[in-house]
């Protein structure tokens, strides 16, 4: 398949640039292409973090735009001195989520993600390819149940899990984002994961329920 030349070629040239270089270019030289490359790279990241946290598309769009635009207005103010920009962005995102009073601790604030935005196939891991049918079926079932369990978590739990796992945040980075000490951040993360696990049926229960389907 051939691709027609796209006008995005300036960003293609920056595809391998480190975020530190892009931030420096954006801050020091007011480089438009570096700024657009950062927008290109981080818009989907923030949008997905917010969508998975709030389940609200309009809110996810609005906060993504605001957080990213504010960070890029003064890129020198949010540099990653010895860390990653995602941590600074997530910290600001979390601060705004708290500011709009979504009450992250309250179990009453549980948002069901609209089915069209919950795409279980996106939870497919590379390991799923080539699995035996029964195992693949079990993995499909787990993905579906994971979707249901996710919607029953409290907002802060969803935020933590949507941030920590896909972005491989260390405990120190999570502590920085949440504004807590490392032991507290670790406890919050562990409780979130445990809450998700407890919302899922135990593997033995799943297998028992799966059995009739498995019959030819």
């Amino acid at each position, binding site marked *: 398949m051939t691709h027609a030349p796209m*006008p995005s070629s300036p960003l293609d040239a920056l595809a391998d640039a480190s975020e530190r270089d892009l931030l420096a270019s954006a801050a020091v030289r007011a480089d438009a292409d570096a700024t657009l490359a950062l927008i290109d790279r981080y*818009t989907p990241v923030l949008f997905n973090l917010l969508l998975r946290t709030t389940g609200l598309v309009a809110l996810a769009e609005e906060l993504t735009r605001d957080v*990213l635009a504010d960070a890029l207005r003064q890129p020198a103010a949010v540099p990653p001195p010895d860390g990653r920009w995602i941590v600074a962005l997530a910290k600001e995102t979390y601060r705004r989520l708290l500011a709009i009073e979504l009450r992250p601790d309250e179990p009453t604030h549980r948002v069901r993600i609209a089915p069209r935005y919950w795409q279980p196939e996106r*939870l497919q891991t590379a*390991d799923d390819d080539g699995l035996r049918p029964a195992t693949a079926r079990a993995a499909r079932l787990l993905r579906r149940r994971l979707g249901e369990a996710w919607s029953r978590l409290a907002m802060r739990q969803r935020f933590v899990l949507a941030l920590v796992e896909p972005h491989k945040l260390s405990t120190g980075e999570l502590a920085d984002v949440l504004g807590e000490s490392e032991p507290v951040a670790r406890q919050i993360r562990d409780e979130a994961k445990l809450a998700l696990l407890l919302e899922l049926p135990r593997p033995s229960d799943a297998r028992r329920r799966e059995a009739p389907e498995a019959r030819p």
Partner: protein
Amino acid sequence: MNRLDCRQLLPHLESYLRGDASEELRLLADDHLARCTSCRRRLAHLKQVTAMLAAWRPMPAPPGLKTETAAALGPDLGRRAREVFPRRPFLGRRRRERLRPPAPMTGYQRVATWLVIAALLFLGAAIAYRILQQWM
């Protein structure tokens, strides 16, 4: 050495899996896991869930969001963004749902459909009979 039971181990499974549990806790967890099939199964489940979350592929950002963000930084950057970011169609779930054939009916739906068809046929026949009676 004290021993952990399942209830005591459960809150620490995540730390154990990540390897950031204390040495003492790790030894206690090792000891418990060697004895408890249920907790070993739960740990495997936790690993699977963690792997799935880690490999969660992002949805594409809605079209126009990148341009809007750039435009919020200034009109010049907004214009440049409109040139640079192609307006790709949003290949979300809705589009694929339209392409997908309709789901097969369940048993109840099939019975209900036939009942409605039978009722309509009966009604049609009754009306036709009454009309024919009036004419003849």
